[in-house]
């Protein structure tokens, strides 16, 4: 009873705080401070058509590197906790219910196109909405489709690990190249900015987003496989 009254009181207090914040809220009619600066100068400075990408990869590039690191740590944690041991994997071989003909055929037909779409998303990250994280997640969803259709499907861990480590290493390397050849860490201007709006433009932004896409895709696929274990 006391606990219930206490939680009700807490909720009321929170509602009061939110109400007082919302009461004085008016929508912003123009950009302020650093946002206005980004919008005004991004085209000349970095040359990426998608402003969000320019902010995520270059102006706030260090945050993105941190996000990739967090995802890497999460994937490593899942792998450490859930990876199947060799003998356990051999001991629990049991007959799994195979997916139906429609599902297997559909998955085999669709998955190459889904992977292609993911690659399209991160290759065009500097031109259209989307980027490395989104493209990587789309690629991982193709892997998920394959898992659903073929319960015994196995990923080639050696290849995935090489791609993941290479792209993580190359991402930091590109950042360091920016530090030495251009204005600072993760500066994209050590490659030519190119023609505004074409595929090969905006300096190193496409390179960085391809690397992020590969890294996120392989990491999420590995997480899915480790989570799957015997479950599917």
């Amino acid at each position: 009873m006391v606990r219930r009254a206490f939680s009700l009181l807490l909720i009321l207090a929170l509602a009061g705080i939110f109400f007082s914040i919302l009461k004085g809220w008016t929508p912003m009619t123009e950009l302020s401070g650093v946002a206005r600066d980004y919008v005004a100068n991004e085209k000349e400075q970095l040359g990426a058509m998608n402003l969000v990408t320019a902010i995520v990869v270059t102006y706030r590039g260090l945050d993105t590197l941190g996000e990739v690191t967090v995802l890497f740590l999460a994937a490593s944690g899942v792998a450490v906790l859930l990876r199947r041991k060799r003998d356990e994997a051999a001991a629990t071989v049991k007959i799994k219910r195979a997916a139906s003909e429609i599902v297997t055929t559909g998955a085999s037909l669709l998955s190459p196109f889904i992977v292609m779409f993911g690659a399209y998303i991160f290759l065009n990250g500097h031109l259209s909405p989307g980027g490395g994280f989104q493209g990587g997640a789309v690629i991982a969803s193709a892997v998920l489709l394959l898992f659903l259709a073929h319960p015994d499907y196995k990923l080639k861990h050696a290849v995935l690990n090489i791609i993941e480590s290479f792209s993580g290493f190359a991402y930091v390397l590109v950042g360091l190249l920016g530090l030495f050849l251009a204005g600072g860490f993760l500066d994209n201007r050590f490659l030519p900015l190119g023609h505004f709006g074409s595929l090969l433009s905006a300096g190193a932004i496409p390179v960085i987003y391809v690397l992020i896409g590969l890294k996120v895709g392989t990491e999420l696929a590995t997480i899915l496989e480790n989570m799957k274990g015997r479950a599917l």
Partner: protein
Amino acid sequence: METIMIILLALVMLAAALATIHMKNMISAILAAGVVSLFASVLYLLMAAPDVAMTEAAIGAGLSTVIFLLAFKKTRDEEVENG
């Protein structure tokens, strides 16, 4: 028109979130949590943030729902084996 749509989507999100908390069946609760993410991504799209909408749809509605389902299946399997 757009305001009405936004309010409707927000109401559906609220209903799905409440359903997530109150549903007894775990799988339905996980699916309801996925519905919250799905409608959130449509909402982001309406509010002119396609980048965020893509992330929310792919990660929030897609992968994390599946990972929750797999985790639920895994814990239930272990319970059957151990108890």
